[in-house]
């Protein structure tokens, strides 16, 4: 896929240019606020917009749903995410991944793997493309299912709590972002996340994680993983809109979240996962 030839990427570049301008303005505002020139505000003033002039983050509350009963483990989401978000092309760092749970007949233990498993990497033949190896073809499978994972954009994110410089923060519309120009690369956030959602980008020297494709959703697009999912296992939308796919998904299903006991209050809602999934 040639990213630069698509209209979407042209639009993305335009968006990023705007984002850069907005970040500069935000920096200037923050600097002025620090110096006491103007009163500090945590959210844009009424009628204002952020992060671009066409988008107001106070008007949205993004949510993500995962219907594990639909996921077929094709891993298109993982590959799309890697390309869309410039995630290092290796088998050890991901913004999103898919887990496979297999119960074999007569075996009490559940077998869990993901695309990074050496057997699966061998099957794909590359660390840049992903597939699940057909490793259970000769076994008698009692039950098996896939579970897509990504950042839970928690309401009480442990990663935000521990960041010593506030480089990672919660937006008004419910997404946890990282300011790569401010992150010091201590990796405390990587340790604090109970879901293993964060990784450290060695080349950039900063932490990174899923943003639900913030650069896309603030333009009215879907996250890349949602867009490429062929079976609709990933559901995204605005929870403020009662008719959005995610609102309907939450309303029409008995949903659950991962590790509710952590107190993080995750915002990725699951249907069809089993007791072993955490």
């Amino acid at each position: 896929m040639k990213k630069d030839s698509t209209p979407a990427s042209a639009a993305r570049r335009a968006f990023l240019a705007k984002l850069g301008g907005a970040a500069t303005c935000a920096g200037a505002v923050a600097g002025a606020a620090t110096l006491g020139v103007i009163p500090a505000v945590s959210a844009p003033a009424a009628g204002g917009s952020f992060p671009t002039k066409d988008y107001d983050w106070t008007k949205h509350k993004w949510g993500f749903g995962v219907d594990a009963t639909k996921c077929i483990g094709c891993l298109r989401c993982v590959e799309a995410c890697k390309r869309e978000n410039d995630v290092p092309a290796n088998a050890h760092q991901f913004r999103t991944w898919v887990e496979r749970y297999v119960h074999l007949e007569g075996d009490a233990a559940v077998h869990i793997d993901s695309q990074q498993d050496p057997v699966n990497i061998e099957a794909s033949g590359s660390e840049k493309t992903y597939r699940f190896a057909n490793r259970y073809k000769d076994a008698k499978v009692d039950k098996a299912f896939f579970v897509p994972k990504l950042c839970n954009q928690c309401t009480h994110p442990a990663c935000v709590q521990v960041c010593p410089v506030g480089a990672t923060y919660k937006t008004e519309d419910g997404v946890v972002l990282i300011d790569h120009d401010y992150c010091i690369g201590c990796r405390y956030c990587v340790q604090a996340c109970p879901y293993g959602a964060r990784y450290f980008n060695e080349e950039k020297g900063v932490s990174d994680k899923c943003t639900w494709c913030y650069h896309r959703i603030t333009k009215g697009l879907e996250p890349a993983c949602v867009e490429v999912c062929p079976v609709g296992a990933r559901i995204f939308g605005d929870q403020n809109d009662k008719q959005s796919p995610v609102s309907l998904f939450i309303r029409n299903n008995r949903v659950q979240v991962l590790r509710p006991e952590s107190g993080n209050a995750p915002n990725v809602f699951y249907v069809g996962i089993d007791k072993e999934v955490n």
Partner: protein
Amino acid sequence: MEPVIHFAPYTGWVYPNETVFEWSVLIAVYPYLTGLVAGAFTVSSLYQVFGFERLKPVAHLALLTSLCFMVFVPTPLLLHLGHPERAFNSTLTPHWTSAMAMFGYFASFYVALLIVEAWFAYRPFIVEQAQQRTDLLGRFYRLLTLGSYDLSPHAMGYDKKWIFALAVTGIPAAHGLHGYVGFMYGSLKSREWWSSDLMPVIFLFSAIISGVALLVVLYVASCKLRKITVDAACVKGLAYTIWAFIMVAIVLEALAFANLVYKGREGIEVIMEYVTGPLLVPYFLLQFAIGMIAPLLWLSYMIWRGTTGRALVTGVTLCALLVLFSVFMMRWNVVIGGQEISKTGKGLLAYHMPFFGKEGALVAIILTLAPLAMLFGLTRLFPPWADGAAHAHA
């Protein structure tokens, strides 16, 4: 070209991103150094504040040791950061909910306190040198007097009050600094191995024993180098201190482990698999049996038998070396061990420490020994020995 990513082999089920170890041996060296700072300062305070006269021969050495190690405490962190040039952001624009953000303040305050206390403690010596020397060093000492040459009994009394006040303030500062390091791990709910309320206290007591043990080794080594007799009473005083604190350290760690096992929360099976497997040698054998129980028994034996002289000095020094090793293993087992147990509670990873490289064993060894080189230099400029001329505050 060396690969950027060093991924870790694993067994069971681990999250894909966990296959890269993010906190290396340097993050184990960091609490080790802060622990030595806090422990050495404890010895200094036992003399300055609580009047343990038998510790007088090491009181100033303790202060200098604390200062030298404190200077190097930030170095493993700076080497570890992805953007060390942004390190001061955590102090300039701290994020108040972060345990880590406080480090800059704690560390700066404590370094300042140590420098001021050392200045007061060495003022008579500095003044004496400033007045006697005419060379370049004389100019250095004259600069250090800050214009104050008054060594009258009144001025000395005033200095003593300051030393006392700084030492008293330094106790909570040093112990706060280290307890807070423990809190950085204990407060994380993502890892069962770290998430313990006892973690700060465990760090604190292991810090104290490591600092006292370091002083035993430094004191005995300095006596050998200077070809003077080791003060057995002082060594015995330090041995008592190690004995008292090591007992508490063992009990606390045993209690924390018992709590973990007894509660048996999610993932305990993997933790048990870990401690009875890969961690058996580093944890039970090296850290506990050889590093803590053996010195405790040996020290108890020497106290019981009233051992003195050369046998006492040799015994306590060997015990101190074991304790120093044990406390490093404790830091290792917490920092590296915590990451070897997957957050999934269903898998184990294996950390392989590179020898070379920014975060390899060689750098870790250099960073641990560098404060000793600095101490060697500082003892030339500011002799901490109590046996020579009365150059420092008694």
